[in-house]
């Protein structure tokens, strides 16, 4: 599974990244987590509010800091 966290490095984005890592660890799944900070690349996903979460190239959430429990729902 390929997970991307989109965000330009603001505090909210870091929280989302940490929560994602936690969700992956707790679910014990194999997944790569990549942080995308380049604004042009972020915009390519068609979002305008960060942070956003992308699972297997599909945007599942934007403009929201998801909790690790909320993230788990998208990883199953």
């Amino acid at each position, binding site marked *: 599974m390929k997970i991307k966290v989109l965000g330009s490095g*603001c505090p909210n*984005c870091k929280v989302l990244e940490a929560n994602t890592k936690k969700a992956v660890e707790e679910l014990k799944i194999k997944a790569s987590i990549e942080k995308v900070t380049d604004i042009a690349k972020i915009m390519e*996903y*068609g*979002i*305008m*509010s*960060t942070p956003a979460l992308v699972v297997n190239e599909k945007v599942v959430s*934007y403009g929201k800091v998801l909790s690790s429990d909320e993230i788990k729902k998208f990883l199953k």
Partner: protein
Amino acid sequence: MDVFYPIQISVNWLVHSLFNLPQGSIFGEALNFFIYDSIKILILLAVIIFVVSYIRTYLAPEKVKRFLSRKFEFLGNMTAATIGIFTPFCSCSAVPLFIGLVESGVPLGVTFSYLIAAPLINEVAAALLWGLFGWKIALIYVASGWIISVVAGFILGKMHLEKYVEEYVYKIKMKKQAVLDKKLQKERVSEAWGETKSIIRKVFLYVLVGIALGAFIHGYAPENLLTQIAGKGNWFAVPVAVLIGVPLYANAAGMIPIVSSLIEKGLPLGTALAFMMAVTALSLPEAIILRKVMKMKLLIIYFSIVALGIMFIGYLFNFIL
């Protein structure tokens, strides 16, 4: 009848009977003011933030941009400013927001109306103004913020400043529109509630400290303290208040209770309103972030026009109230 009357009765009983601080004693009055205001403001914050957050679940910028891109200019400015009321300004999102609006063909002036309204009119400030001055002042704040956003955005649009947007902004292309699953009513309510809790958790300490300082000023500072220095007679008070306010990035939550006590001591309401708006609408961190998408000249024009708009509102309210 005032819906908060029962709370005032309970607080009176608590302070004057249970703590045995006589009515009219300076400490008793200050404590009464502090407890009553804290409870009242907490309730108002919870209700207003919840309502605004709920409406916001329908107004994601990803959705509204299509709507804004096909509007006529003046109508577009009005719509953008209205949507901006419900949108917070998040430093994280300012850059993608700006690029996304420009990329989808929203006129620059309309983009500015949105960009001005989002930080200028915020629900925490509205709740505090309601709690401390009554709903009329809260409404005046929202309405005048809206007018500044519409007019300043419209003027900026007429100035044809497109060439002062950083070139790379025009090169970015959004391949497709991200579409999320439709939110259920239950999800919207729980999202709004989660947002309410997180904002209150963030601001409440500042509010309490602000109210405590306000209560202290209320109880101990001499009447008419500020009438001499910053009264209506002093023509320079409004621009000075705005110029001090612009670079500041204070927390509206902590500042408003203090300002409210200063008003009691003779600071004119228009001057106070102008100061608060300058603090919330324009700030140094915001300028630094927006510099990534705007050339210096555009940034300066943008800040100047908004600052002038705020000064105008300040004079207007000093004049009519």
